[in-house]
């Protein structure tokens, strides 16, 4: 039930912001500060989510095979690998390090 509540709230919220953006009169969200905050918010959230999902294990911080996988993904990104390959590299390296007992 909890999961369904989260799904319903997320679906409603995410649809609403899309619709509001498309329907809002031009100029409403055009204030420079609002635009800059909107651009910077995903940066902060994505960085935090990356760190949390790489090093977080519940409330603990751990360094395991996943960190190697995400580091490999970062290298792939630096080499301009396409999106799917970046994810594939992260998954493969993580599995490989784990198989080696990392």
């Amino acid at each position, binding site marked *: 039930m*909890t*999961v*369904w*509540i*989260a*799904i319903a*709230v*997320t*679906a409603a*919220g*995410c*649809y609403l*912001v*899309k*619709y*509001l*953006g*498309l*329907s*809002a009169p*031009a100029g409403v*969200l055009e204030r420079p*500060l609002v635009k*800059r*905050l*909107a651009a*910077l*918010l*995903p*940066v*902060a*959230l*994505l*960085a*935090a*989510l*990356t*760190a949390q*999902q790489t090093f977080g294990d*519940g*409330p603990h*911080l751990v360094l395991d*095979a*996943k960190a190697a*996988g*995400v580091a490999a*993904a*970062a290298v792939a*990104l630096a080499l*301009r690998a*396409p*999106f*799917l390959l*970046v*994810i594939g590299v*992260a*998954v493969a390296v*993580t*599995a490989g390090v784990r*198989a080696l007992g990392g």
Partner: protein
Amino acid sequence: MAEQTEIRTAPPAAAPPSRPAKPDSAVIRDALGVGVAVGLSGFAFGVTSAGAGLGLLQTCALSLLVFTGASQFALVGALAAGGNPFTAAAGAFFLGARNAFYGLRLSAVLGYRARIRPLAAHWIIDETSAVALAQPDRRTARLGFTVTGLTLYTLWNLTTLVGALGAGALGDTDAWGLDAAAPAVFVALLAPMLKDGVERAAAGLAVVLVMVTLPLLPTGVPVLVSALAAPAVLLVQGRRERAGAARRGAGRAAAAAAPSAPRDTTAGPRDAAGEDRA
């Protein structure tokens, strides 16, 4: 989700050699390229969601109804960690809020009537916006938006289903390294956003905030706390710009700073405060 890819894929479309009349086939090719590549990554979402303990119906409902990848990954990650549903939804919502700004820009470009808008709104994500905004006129923008949206929505949902079904067959998804898919998606989305000092400062500060608060605060809350890095960095940057302007002399700077400061991200922020902290 894969909102990154399109940013990389967009430039070819953004610089059409035939500016006035871009052939439909070229628009469709661009749109299909983005739609197929990103649509296929729904598989990673399906597996991640199933691995996080969500049911098949729940996983598919997310791709059908939320349809904005980063938010979906964030939500299942927060739920898997045992977070409160509202905290989890808040993190996903804040990530999805950027779509409002795409919608705002698209409304002028696409010019859809009020009746079409509720339908078109659902497809407003990074990829469709990138393709549509790269087109030279309204007709090709609509074509690009529709083809990207249709391809991506169809594939994203199909591959979500396949991934969720496949996760069961895989058994322990961690043994396959699939728990690394979500953070890899986030890194891939984040990388092109780290254009200059302000973005890097916000990202660095957010990482510090989440790592410090992770052991202290309830599940899901640390990510929300880390969002404060964005206004914090803007605040510091604004202060620096004002201080710099004051030093340069009141008259000239006062006139210049107000309108130009927000747009000129490279002016003061290069030495932004967060950088040393990060």
